[in-house]
């Protein structure tokens, strides 16, 4: 903690945090001719290999370009269905809610980047390279792509007698692409000019902030919405609209511009907060915000629950107050430093009560609101942990405060989730597409993380029964494919529930993902746990810590830090695995691209275009996470000590 604030204070004196360059000794760059000789043509075998690879790559690139720019491709299919892909059948009249969601995420993202990011910036040398590479890629694409086709006035493709398309001549095609020639040459020229003008020393020392590059390029994309004629394609209230030769609809470009402004604005806000002393408390608040965002977005913003306020005043609020005050009093007593054995026994007693509630529920002895049971569980867990937090008055107040906040959140979301949605929905799931993919990922990770940690602790525990139970669970889950588990939870789980208890298919799917993911997560955490040296345990014991204290304050923090790289891998894996929802009948990103759009009358059987777009969306998100994890790994110095 102290280290962190030290960094913040130090950087506060600097003008731009981004611009703190990490100067590494750099190898002097070779002149181009020598570089080529050293890396491409050193020896006969390598020369042949180079020529062969370049030739094959050219063929592959040409194939890809021809495929993408072919006159047979119907790119308007994904373009028209952009809304479907992102949010499925969310009602057009309520679409502002989606924008509120994006806005919320933009605020969280922008502020987080502003507060946390320690980007070193990109050297001018690299930028010159990028510019020249981009220009060369554009020029190469111009030459490699096959000439376009002739079209008549109506835009139909002209065909000859054998119904083959008639292509333009090579020279016409090249002159058609004049604009792109200019763009490509401009990039190369700009790169070369900057390269020569800056000189060797400044090329290395001048650094452009990464934030400027990222937000700038996003800004360019947003700007292009206003300038470039992408065309206006959409289904609005079931009506099919396809107008080429104009910019996108105002309802698209205005909100996105706003979102960009919010993103950049909250980035600068985060920057300003970082320079103040409140930075660490804002960071805590942001963490909480990220944790709550899936629930708030899904159940509050998108679903717009119709809360029955009379019920709230008569039942929900009194119930909450009773729990908050009663539970608070209990925890206040339990965290009293001198309570000793009695506190521990009381904690155990609370656990027994909490478990008994569930036993009673399954046996059907007496009815009870689910949130009451969950409140008891929460209270019991905090009660068990209470002895770890006993101490000064202020510490005890903070502990009880945590209970207040948690109980409030539990009761609030329980009320919200049980209220009916006011948003009109076409199908039983009121949202789908990318929203569902992201939502399932987020919820799965949230549920499986604590579960995985518990399983890992169980598997490395010295208590044989815990170890056997954890190992059995982990190994049997890891032994079977995910799809069978998802089938189990979506088809078979309802059979196991007692009468009158029901589970929504969506919840069952998330449960399936979580239980599956927890087994893999446990193995990742176990790797971290096993890397903790014996001395740490012995030191903790020597200090007189109890074994829960040793685990939660000494062992776990270190183990989790070690397991960050595999855990990020797990995040990526879970995100990719959500595509399996498409098989078991949910409307996720993939299902819409593969089945929903090809079933529309306008785009009957159009599959590949959608799939490529969907693949690109997955790729961008996954690639971003994996790049971020590499940075994180370097920053934390994992594996270096």
């Amino acid at each position, binding site marked *: 903690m102290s280290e962190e604030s030290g960094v913040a204070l130090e950087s506060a004196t600097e003008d731009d945090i981004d611009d703190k360059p990490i100067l590494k000794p750099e190898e002097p760059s070779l002149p181009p001719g020598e570089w080529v000789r050293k890396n491409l043509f050193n020896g006969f075998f390598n020369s042949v290999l180079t020529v062969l690879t370049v030739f094959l790559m050219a063929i592959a690139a040409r194939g890809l370009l021809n495929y993408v720019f072919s006159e047979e491709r119907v790119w308007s299919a994904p373009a028209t269905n952009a809304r479907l892909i992102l949010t499925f059948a969310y009602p057009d009249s309520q679409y502002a809610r989606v924008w509120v969601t994006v806005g919320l995420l933009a605020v969280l993202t922008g502020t987080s980047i502003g507060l946390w990011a320690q980007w070193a910036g990109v050297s001018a040398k690299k930028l010159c390279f990028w510019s020249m590479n981009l220009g060369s890629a554009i020029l190469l694409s111009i030459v490699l792509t096959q000439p376009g086709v002739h079209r008549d006035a109506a835009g139909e493709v002209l065909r000859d007698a054998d119904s083959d398309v008639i292509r333009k001549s090579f020279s016409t095609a090249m002159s058609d692409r004049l604009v792109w020639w200019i763009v490509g040459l401009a990039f190369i020229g700009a790169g070369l000019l900057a390269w020569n003008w800056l000189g060797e020393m400044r090329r290395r020392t001048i650094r452009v902030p990464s934030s400027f590059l990222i937000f700038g390029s996003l800004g360019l994309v947003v700007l292009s919405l206003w300038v470039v004629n992408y065309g206006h394609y959409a289904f609005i209230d079931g009506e099919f609209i396809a107008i080429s030769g104009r910019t996108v609809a105002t309802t698209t470009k205005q909100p996105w511009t706003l979102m960009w402004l919010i993103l950049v604005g909250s980035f600068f806000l985060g920057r300003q907060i970082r320079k103040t002393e409140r930075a660490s408390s804002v960071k805590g608040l942001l963490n909480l915000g990220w944790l709550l965002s899936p629930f708030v977005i899904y159940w509050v913003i998108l679903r717009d629950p119709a809360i029955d306020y009379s019920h709230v005043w008569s039942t929900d609020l009194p119930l909450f107050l009773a729990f908050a005050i009663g539970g608070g009093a209990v925890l206040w007593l339990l965290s009293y430093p001198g309570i000793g054995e009695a506190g521990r026994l009381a904690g155990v007693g609370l656990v027994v009560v909490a*478990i008994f509630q569930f036993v009673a529920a399954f046996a059907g002895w007496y009815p009870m609101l689910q949130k009451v049971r969950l409140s008891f569980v929460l209270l019991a867990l905090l009660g068990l942990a209470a002895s770890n937090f006993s101490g000064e008055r202020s510490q005890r107040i903070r502990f009880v405060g945590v209970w207040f906040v948690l109980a409030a959140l539990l009761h609030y979301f329980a009320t919200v989730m049980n209220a009916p949605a006011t948003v009109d929905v076409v199908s039983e799931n009121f949202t789908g597409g990318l929203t569902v993919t992201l939502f399932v990922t987020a919820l799965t990770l949230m549920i499986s993380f604590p579960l995985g940690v518990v399983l890992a602790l169980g598997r490395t525990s010295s208590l044989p*029964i815990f170890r056997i139970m954890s190992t059995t669970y982990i190994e049997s889950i890891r032994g079977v494919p995910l799809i069978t588990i998802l089938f*189990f939870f979506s*088809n078979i789980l309802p059979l196991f529930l007692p009468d009158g208890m029901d589970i929504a298919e969506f919840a069952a799917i998330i449960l399936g993902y979580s239980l599956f993911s927890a087994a893999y997560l446990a193995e990742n955490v176990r790797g971290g746990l096993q890397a903790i040296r014996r001395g740490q345990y012995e030191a903790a014991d020597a200090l007189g810590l109890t074994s829960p204290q040793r685990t939660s304050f000494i062992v776990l923090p270190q183990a989790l830090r070690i397991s960050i790289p595999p855990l990020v891998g797990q995040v990526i894996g879970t995100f990719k695995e959500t595509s399996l929802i*498409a098989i078991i009948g949910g409307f996720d990103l*993939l299902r819409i691209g593969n089945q929903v759009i090809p079933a529309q009358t306008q785009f009957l059987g159009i599959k590949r275009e959608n799939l490529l777009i969907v*693949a690109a969306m997955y790729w961008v998100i996954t690639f971003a996470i994996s790049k971020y994890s590499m940075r994180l790994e370097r920053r934390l110095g994992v594996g270096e000590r």
Partner: protein
Amino acid sequence: MTNPTTLAERAHEKPPFYRDATIVKWIIQVAALALVLFSLFFLASEAGDNLRASNVPTDFNFLDVDPGIKVSEGIDTNPNTGGRALWVGMVNTIRMSIAGIAAATVLGVIIGLARLSSNWTVNKVGSIYIETIRNIPLLVQIYIWAAILASLSPVTLEQGPIHGWIHLSNKGLSLPRVFVSDGFYQWLVVMIFGALVARWVHKRQTAIHDASGHDTYPIGSAGGVLLVFAAIGWFIHPVFGFLGGWLDQVAELIDGTPEFGVQLALSAIFVSAAVLWIRSFLNQRRTPAGPAQLSDDDWFRMIFAGIGAAIGVFVVLIMWPGLSSWMINSSRDLFEVLGAKFGDGRDGAPFDAMRPDIVKPGNFANYGPSGLNLTIGFAAVFFGVVLYTAAFIGEIVRGGILAIPKGQTEAASAVGLRRSTLLRMVILPQAIRIILPPVGNQYLNLAKNTSLAIAVGYSDLVQVGQTIGNQTGKPLPVFAIWMLFYLAVSLTISVVVNFFNIRLKIVER
């Protein structure tokens, strides 16, 4: 505190039972176990009630009943029992896994080496491949392959009946079919003998090389011996027809074994295994000062072994006495089948081959049965899992080779080894130890990922099981079969990988 005592004196007091670490530990564990068992029992009884209420008894009867479904491809496209249909699915899964593992290994190693290449273009191609494939979900890739293959040109009768060796269309891929023919088993016997001789030759040549330093080409000579045996076996294999009679005699011998004898033998095996294990366990714990203090854990293990043996004996003798007769019958059947395969006086080539053909049984032309036909589903899943897994294997191979200290390369160069020898004799033997365990994990993943075949209609176990489960309304037993099958597959792969792992381990002093 009525009697103020020093800490040292109080250390000898026995704590109250709720502070006794041993007792508390066991109370917590037993309570947790009881809770889990209670939940499971409760859920199971609910499931039983629900199933009885819905009049769908959970049993495995559907295994013997005509499932009324067709399987799109496999060893039997028109299975007459549910069990047979699931078996076809299993074979399809295994087929896909084996083919996939072989292809992914080759491609993965190539990509890993490409990523290590000093040649800039090759290196870049490797990294572009890995970054693209790794970051797109496998299911999306499978769908893309299926969509691309489905858009190929259709197959027509004019293209056939035999049009070259390979035929690709929107019906899939048709390849020449190589199959095991009549003489195969006799030939196999020759080959087993040949393998033994080849092994001996390999050892001998290696020994000569080690002793004298001459080039003796152990692998080349062993391969040559094997080839010679294959060629000889092709012509003289009918000689081994007499093995058929021997195998039949073994089958008769097994048939005559009394049931009770088998039961006793099995029980004896269980009990003696437990006793031997406990003995060796105790010996391990023995210190020069006598038997060591046994921890809770040790006791638990020994009790566990004893209970395991008791359960084994109970099952064999009382619970399932049919087990031993089943074992007798099935091993007798196995030998009878083997005996029939050899037969007396059978001959013919060990292998045969047929080329693809195109037939038109109804309105639509399709591939006939003589070629090895891979449907679009197979090809899509195959390309999908192979390309996907190869990307991961590539990264593993690269990491494993990079993990070898640079000093090894430098030392080998200093001794004067050529680059290829250096790789083969110094780097790879060390890298393979690092590479093998994670690659084994990837093999497991590949086998499990083949279950995505259900998305494109390739009839693997999951697809067939899902169809049968829906049709009979008995998803639970099907789920149990899935679980057992995949656990068996996982176990098999880990056993094989572990075998090589142990063999390759550095033997330390």
